[in-house]
């Protein structure tokens, strides 16, 4: 206590500069958040209501660009694809949880298994797309391999099939991100109290029932986080499309972010790109609002 009493007499001015040093240190981040994030978002939202084409043009046109956007069959297709992709990406979480459960307990070589499941996460999505494009190659890849084994009519040409190309993207994306969800689920499983398991052993409850009825509900936070991350991943998906399909065949693997970037960079239609990205933002917001509410609803019903 002694010294602090003495130091309490520190000149006010010094405290003043201290306080300001902290505020100054926070300024670059505050500035970046306000200008580059909020400002940019606002600018795009405003642009979506204007007639801007190659150059910004402040002529207000109301919702006309949104009407145009939703009349574009490619945009509608991209939203449809986004839903498929997001649903398919759930496989990463299911498989990741399954692997995390299997790795619970003393499995020999658990560390090696984890390392193998997770390494795709360290690789660029451009590479993921490229290697899966190669595996899906109809005459030299997996399809040919299975045909050589004897199944002459085997068809696994997903990348070139308009109806199945999204599944090919999902396979590649699940390969890339399953390890990550395994890690998240492992962390969630570790957080569960040891006594829960002991109690179940004493009561003789089989393990699978414990997982279904006790552990999974207890891990709702982990799953909620995972769902948010999965949806953000789906909204963000761009690189993997470029590397694997470039949107083809015939636009059947276009996702909204691909559509928007293409609209800005190649088709040079600012207002339409802005309208698309505003819709994307609304999707994210709706999802972020809906998920906690659903979670709350589930908890209420249980209680």
């Amino acid at each position, binding site marked *: 206590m002694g010294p602090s009493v003495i130091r309490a007499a520190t000149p006010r001015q010094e405290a003043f500069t201290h306080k300001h040093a902290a505020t100054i240190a926070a300024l670059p981040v505050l500035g970046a958040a306000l200008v580059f994030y909020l400002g940019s978002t606002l600018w795009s939202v405003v642009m979506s209501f204007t007639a801007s084409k190659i150059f910004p043009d402040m002529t207000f046109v109301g919702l006309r660009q949104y009407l145009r956007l939703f009349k574009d069959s490619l945009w509608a297709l991209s939203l449809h694809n986004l839903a498929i992709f997001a649903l398919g990406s759930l496989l990463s979480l299911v498989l990741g949880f399954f692997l995390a459960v299997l790795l619970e307990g003393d499995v020999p070589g658990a560390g090696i298994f984890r390392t193998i499941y997770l390494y795709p996460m360290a690789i660029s999505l451009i590479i993921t797309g490229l290697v899966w494009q190669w595996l899906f190659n109809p005459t030299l890849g997996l399809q040919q391999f299975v045909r050589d084994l004897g199944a002459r009519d085997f068809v696994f040409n997903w990348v070139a099939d308009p109806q199945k190309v999204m599944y090919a993207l999902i396979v590649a994306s699940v390969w890339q991100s*399953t390890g990550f969800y395994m890690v998240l689920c492992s962390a969630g499983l570790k957080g569960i109290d040891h006594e829960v398991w002991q109690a179940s052993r004493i009561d003789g409850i089989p393990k699978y029932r414990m997982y279904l009825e006790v552990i999974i509900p207890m891990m709702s936070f982990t799953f909620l986080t995972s769902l948010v991350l999965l949806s953000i991943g789906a909204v963000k998906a761009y690189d993997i499309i470029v590397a694997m399909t470039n949107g083809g065949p015939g636009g059947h693997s276009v996702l909204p972010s691909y559509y928007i970037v293409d609209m800005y960079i190649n088709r040079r239609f600012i207002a339409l790109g802005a309208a698309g990205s505003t819709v994307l933002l609304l999707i994210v917001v709706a999802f*972020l609002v809906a998920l906690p509410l659903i979670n709350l609803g589930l908890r209420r019903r249980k209680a």
Partner: protein
Amino acid sequence: MTAVPRPSVAMTLPNAIPVKHRGAKVTTFLILVFFALLFALPLYVMIVTSLKSMDEIRLGHIFALPQHPNFDAWDTAWNKAASGFTNTGLKSGFWNSVLILVPSLIMSVSIASICGYALAFWRVKMGNLLLSLLLVCAFIPFPIIMYPLIKMTVALKLYNTSFGVSVVHTILALPILTMIFRNFFSSIPQDLIKAARIDGGRFLGTFVHVILPLSPNILVVVAIMQITGIWNDFLIGLTFGNVQSYPMTVNLNNITQTQTGVRTYNIYMAAALLTAIPPLVIYFISGKLFIRGITAGAMKG
């Protein structure tokens, strides 16, 4: 009291369970091996394909080991593969990636750590408001800020330069990195800072002499996350760079997409492996720290 019933349970368990238990363990192990093979398969295919000649690849045995393994495709990929405008292979892209990575790593980590420190220990005016603002920023999808960022980098004469790419990477990393640092620093006992302040420590002095020595782990975790994230980025490099400054991933994509006629998959796979080596090396060396990095950085984007 509670210890009384347990011994009896423990005594009945070992007799009843082991055989069934061992069977379950073997099954578990086999399933894990199956998935390990499945996950390792693409990497295996990349490696064997990169060591084959095109003549051998045309035979169609994608999983076969190379008959005459050689590094010709690696040499071509690194030195002379055509990527749109030039025939200089991947090596220029490699150096561009390094040139993009180093400044963005330094800028993002230093700015975010100092701000995180200010938010954790000092009464920053409206600090909590800033934190909520950063959380919002972390959820804003990149496409909506892409075009305005292009306009701003053009105005700042940073567009189409490698430093411009670094600046954009820094901007995109700031919200999440600041939150990570702030959360980590908050776990450091406040008393330490108070003691340092009492000893006359100033804002930056306390940061350098007290806080940083306590945080080597978080710095490594963040560095790993940033290095792999920036190295693997494609879209930022593509949109904000130009032919002279494209990172390795863009270079790789150009090599695989601009060639007409025969698709030389041995060269593509060699190029892909060359691009993947730096983050893979970091991954295999850093292990648990990498895991912490991707878990902490998961919200990025």
